């Protein structure tokens, strides 16, 4: 691609800035910390600016093109989010400042907790978890603490449908739980018979991704939740797909006990290399005492003369901290901005348009790309990237070829229950023109698959880097580019 690495651009002795002479006495470093050489690239500021600017121009991003990456909700991230997050009152705060001097940030966090409670139908919310899977870990640790507090410590089994997000089994295993997979039925719902067989006194809970990774709303969700509760278990909701539900369904109202939100998906904070995630967790009243410490609360309601005083409180049976300070606060500012800009009506329209866009794409593609479990979808759907009369073409080849048409490929080979899966999520941000251009490319690729399959097998042809050798990348992973100390 013609862009060298920093270590290759390095010139001995070159540097970007000069430090002023110190105005305090120098203190020598301890001998044990000194080393002979420190091989780091040496460059001017301009070298570095140009290097990263060139790299950024090689990237695909949501600001440059359509990004229908299933399950990731790559929606537009409004630029006003960046303005509010950079307000000095937020950006220049120190997390150890006395609460009296950080009231604005605390009010924002408190209101975001309240809004997420209202949006999800929960009694309490923590903003601490750093991302979605971290939210899952927090949630499952809360479930475990709840069972232990009731003397129910034999409950160590977590049920996970085969249409769940891939992080769910990892979360459960990391929490010391036993994972049992549940099959989906022919319509893509949790198989109720399989669920009944697993509902026993060892059941800690079930992790439900709803809508699931097929993009389908579980038609038996109330019965699934009832069965788990009847057996003494709790239901964890994977809220990564909340974009389909905003303002329409509140998971807490369905009976879900604990759920994580992905601010970086549903609430438009950057991700996919653009920023850290954020995975707040909401819980029903019976789990509120177990939330991570601390939460933001109103310490003193104030009166006519004095404004309320916001501060921090530790829930009585807290599982402890899960993140330093208060999570990724900058993401909370962005999500707060997004929710405030949309209001309740706007949030509902987000869900409606996300679902409409996905169904439009499905309707236009399903005659050419087989869609198993084909019923009205939510925010995404899963098609098969294979044809019997083009046996050498795989989903991966279609994904690579899409890059030649300037589209980010959909998620592929997930969920595992669909062969050669292509998981397509357009989000609400996209116009009909963009959706149509994507469909046109997909239909053209299907035609190419039958007439010029080698065009797909060798794709991408028009990107800075061609087809990468994934086997070599996985087996001979070399991440370090060293600067020779002898240069």
């Amino acid at each position, binding site marked *: 691609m013609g862009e060298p690495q920093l270590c290759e651009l390095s010139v001995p002795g070159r540097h970007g800035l000069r430090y002023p002479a110190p105005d305090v006495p120098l203190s020598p470093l301890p001998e044990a910390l000194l080393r002979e050489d420190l091989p780091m690239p040496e460059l001017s500021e301009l070298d570095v600016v140009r290097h990263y600017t060139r790299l950024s121009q090689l990237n695909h991003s949501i600001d440059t093109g359509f990004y229908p990456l299933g399950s990731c909700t790559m929606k537009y991230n409004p630029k006003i989010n960046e303005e509010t997050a950079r307000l000095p009152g937020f950006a220049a705060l120190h997390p150890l400042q006395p609460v009296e001097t950080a009231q604005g940030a605390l009010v924002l966090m408190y209101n975001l907790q309240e809004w997420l409670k209202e949006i999800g139908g929960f009694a309490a919310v923590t903003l601490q978890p750093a991302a979605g899977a971290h939210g899952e870990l927090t949630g499952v640790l809360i479930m475990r603490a709840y069972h232990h507090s009731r003397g129910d410590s034999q409950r160590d089994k977590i049920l996970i449908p085969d249409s769940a997000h891939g992080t769910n089994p990892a979360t459960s295993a990391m929490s010391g739980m036993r994972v049992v997979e549940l099959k989906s039925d022919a319509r893509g719902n949790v198989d109720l018979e399989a669920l009944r067989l697993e509902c026993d006194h060892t059941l800690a809970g079930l992790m439900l991704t709803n809508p699931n990774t097929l993009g389908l709303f579980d038609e038996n969700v109330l019965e699934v939740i009832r069965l788990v509760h009847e057996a003494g278990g709790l239901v964890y909701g994977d809220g990564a797909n909340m974009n389909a539900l905003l303002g329409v369904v509140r998971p807490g109202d369905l009976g879900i006990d604990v759920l994580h939100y992905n601010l970086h998906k549903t609430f438009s904070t950057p991700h996919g290399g653009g920023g850290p995630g954020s995975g707040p967790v909401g819980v029903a009243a019976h789990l509120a005492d177990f939330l991570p410490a601390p939460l933001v609360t109103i310490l003193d309601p104030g009166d006519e003369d004095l404004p309320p005083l916001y501060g921090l409180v530790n829930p009585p049976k807290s599982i402890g901290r899960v993140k330093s300070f208060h999570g990724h606060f900058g993401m909370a500012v962005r999500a707060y901005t997004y929710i405030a800009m949309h209001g309740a009506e706007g949030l509902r329209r987000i869900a409606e348009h996300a679902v409409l866009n996905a169904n439009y794409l499905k309707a236009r593609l399903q005659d050419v790309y087989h869609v198993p479990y084909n019923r009205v979808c939510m925010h995404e759907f899963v098609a098969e990237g294979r044809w019997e009369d083009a046996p050498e073409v795989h989903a991966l080849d279609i994904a690579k070829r899409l890059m030649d048409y300037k589209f980010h490929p959909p998620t592929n080979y997930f969920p595992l229950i669909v062969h050669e899966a292509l998981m397509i999520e357009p989000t609400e941000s996209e116009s009909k023109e963009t959706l149509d251009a994507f469909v046109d490319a997909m239909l053209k690729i299907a035609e190419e698959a039958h007439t010029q399959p080698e065009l797909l097998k060798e794709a991408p042809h028009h990107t800075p880097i061609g087809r990468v050798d*994934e086997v070599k990348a996985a*087996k001979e992973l070399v991440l370090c580019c060293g600067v020779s100390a002898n240069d």
Partner: protein
Amino acid sequence: MNVPTNLKYTESNEWIKVEGNTGTIGITDFAQNSLSDIVFAEVVVGEGDTVGKGASIATIESVKAAADVYTPISGKVIAINEDLGSAPEVINSDPYGAAWLVKIELIDPAELDGLMDAAAYEAQVQE
């Protein structure tokens, strides 16, 4: 797709070859083909371990997915294939031969009756 007739099969795409009281276990040609290029394989049990039918005995990763391998029968692990760690691609090239994963001493040969023969497995895969 290659489905040797002298082996028994599971729904989760493992094969077992029984010789006397010893069962040799691996994953099927269909499984390796579905996973595509395999880049990592690790047997997660050790010699001398006793494993119950359905227990996880190995983890296999390809460029597409990671998969657990389950033992089709209960028994004591008497040998594990040490060569796969450095050459997992053998699972792609020789799934029924050099890419065996573990050998197990059977506890209850009657468990074999619950497994599929080649014809039944082929029918399952065709679905």
